[in-house]
């Protein structure tokens, strides 16, 4: 089945190539047209690498926002040791140096048969290959009472930007002696260690300014990534301040009453929070649903050698919206997947077969500004699909150099931004 599908793609790919000579927005599209949807770590990296690898391929990047605020370092902005401005980036370098056609508009529909993308502004884009990196959507209502309006009172702050600022303001306004709650959903969700970094950096801020406060992590899981490293950090840096509640002990929040600041767990017990950051269950962004790229799980199944959708050919899905187990949903994963797709797309549009993929993920988490823990892995594709290479990767050692990791995490941020958006910070 795989072989016949691949042949089909090759044949249709060749047919559309002959039509691909029409210039798109002045770019010479000698070899084909690629449309990229989503300008985050996945989409921006894919656009930059395709243009870098083959300037004869025209690339159009569609991203609704003129500026992009990263989720990495978002909790550092919340805690006040990084400025929002320094995690906000634009698309000028992609446009000017790499010749990417950047369009700030919303995608309203994708037709995988005629290979067109329809934008809210009225224009239509034709593609030979489509790269989708649209990120996450929230399952509003999965936690009873948690809808968009409730998120203005109990911020998720899980897509950067204004929600991060809102959470920061709430921490500032919090009374000393109050309780801040962070809720964590079940896997899969964006940034698995993120809720625990958030709790850590809330404790960092509160210990400094409101030391009688407490941070409660209410978890829908019985365990969490890098748990021993986070717990070690909490005990040494914020003794008695951070409490993690497992799903086994009533940690799963099933209902909120946002106006009253109430969270209710599966046992029916209520917690009154002075500040609550509710990170709700997630799914692929809405456009992935509209374009029929999701399965029953709400995420996008892909063939993990090239990240091509198993539902529609010539569409590659990367980043948080893709089902890329065992890779976690992270900016680093998205950036790495974008490179696999860039090489595959360039191979296809040059009439070649794509090569074997190799990917890395590293997740750095701040427990304090000078205390970072990490987990990493190297991934290859084998007989059993995409797997972490045995013996490669792993977590920070318990006696690791957390300060050196903190300096590396800041260096990593600058470098992945340069690698993604083409711009030095």
């Amino acid at each position, binding site marked *: 089945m795989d072989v016949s599908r691949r042949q089909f793609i090759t044949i249709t790919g060749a047919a559309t190539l002959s039509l691909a000579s029409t210039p798109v927005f002045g770019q010479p599209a000698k070899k084909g047209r690629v449309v990229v949807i989503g300008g985050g770590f996945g989409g921006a990296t894919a656009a930059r690498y395709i243009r870098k690898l083959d300037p004869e391929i025209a690339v159009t990047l569609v991203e609704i926002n003129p500026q992009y605020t990263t989720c990495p370092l978002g909790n550092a902005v919340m805690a006040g040791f990084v400025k929002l401005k320094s995690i906000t980036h634009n698309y000028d370098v992609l446009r000017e140096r790499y010749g990417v056609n950047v369009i700030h508009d919303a995608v309203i529909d994708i037709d995988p048969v005629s290979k067109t993308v329809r934008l809210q502004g009225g224009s239509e884009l034709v593609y030979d290959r489509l790269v989708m990196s649209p990120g996450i959507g929230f399952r509003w209502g999965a936690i009873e009472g948690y809808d968009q309006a409730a998120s203005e009172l109990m911020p998720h702050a899980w897509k950067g930007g204004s929600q991060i600022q809102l959470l920061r303001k709430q921490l500032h306004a919090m009374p000393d002696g109050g309780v801040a709650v962070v809720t964590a959903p079940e896997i899969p969700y964006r940034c698995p260690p993120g809720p625990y970094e958030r709790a850590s950096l809330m404790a960092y801020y509160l210990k400094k300014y409101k030391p009688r406060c407490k941070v409660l992590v209410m978890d829908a899981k019985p365990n969490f990534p890098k748990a021993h490293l986070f717990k070690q950090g909490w005990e040494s840096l914020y003794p008695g301040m951070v409490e993690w*509640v497992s799903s086994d002990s009533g940690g799963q929040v099933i209902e909120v009453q946002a106006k*009253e600041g109430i969270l209710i767990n599966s046992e029916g017990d209520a917690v009154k929070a002075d500040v609550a950051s509710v990170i709700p269950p997630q799914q692929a962004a809405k456009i992935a649903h509209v374009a029929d790229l999701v399965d029953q799980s709400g995420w996008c199944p892909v063939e993990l050698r090239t990240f091509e959708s198993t539902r529609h050919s010539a569409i590659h899905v990367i980043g948080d919206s893709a089902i890329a187990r065992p890779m976690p949903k992270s900016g680093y994963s998205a950036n790495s997947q974008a490179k696999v797709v860039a090489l595959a797309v360039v191979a296809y549009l040059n009439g070649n077969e794509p090569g074997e*993929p190799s990917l890395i993920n590293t997740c750095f988490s701040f427990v304090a500004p000078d205390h970072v823990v*990490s987990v990493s892995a190297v991934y290859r594709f084998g007989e059993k699909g995409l797997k*972490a290479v045995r013996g490669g990767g792993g977590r920070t050692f318990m006696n690791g150099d957390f300060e050196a*990791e903190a300096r*590396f995490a800041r260096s990593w941020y600058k*470098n992945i931004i340069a690698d993604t958006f083409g711009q030095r910070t």
Partner: protein
Amino acid sequence: MKRYVLPLGRVSFLVGVLCCVSVVHAQPVSPEMLAFPCMACHGPEGESQGEIPSLKGRSYNDLKNHLQAFKSMRRRGVIMNRITRGYSDEQIEALARYFSGVK
């Protein structure tokens, strides 16, 4: 409203073992494909800002020796002991060749 702070119950730690299998390669991975993921940490073309070392402008032998020393634990790194174990000796040589060739 009555305030509850829930009791901290039994804690189950994740066993510190990643789920892995041996990977058999039908085809060798291209040098570009091996090198590109490194650039998320080491910067575009291996030119780093900040404390993570640059790979650009270093000789083949220098890079190969460093990578091998990390892999064999002869040299202690921050992250690289973990990462290099994901690469065969041939792949380390391909990476050293790629980054030493970056202009």
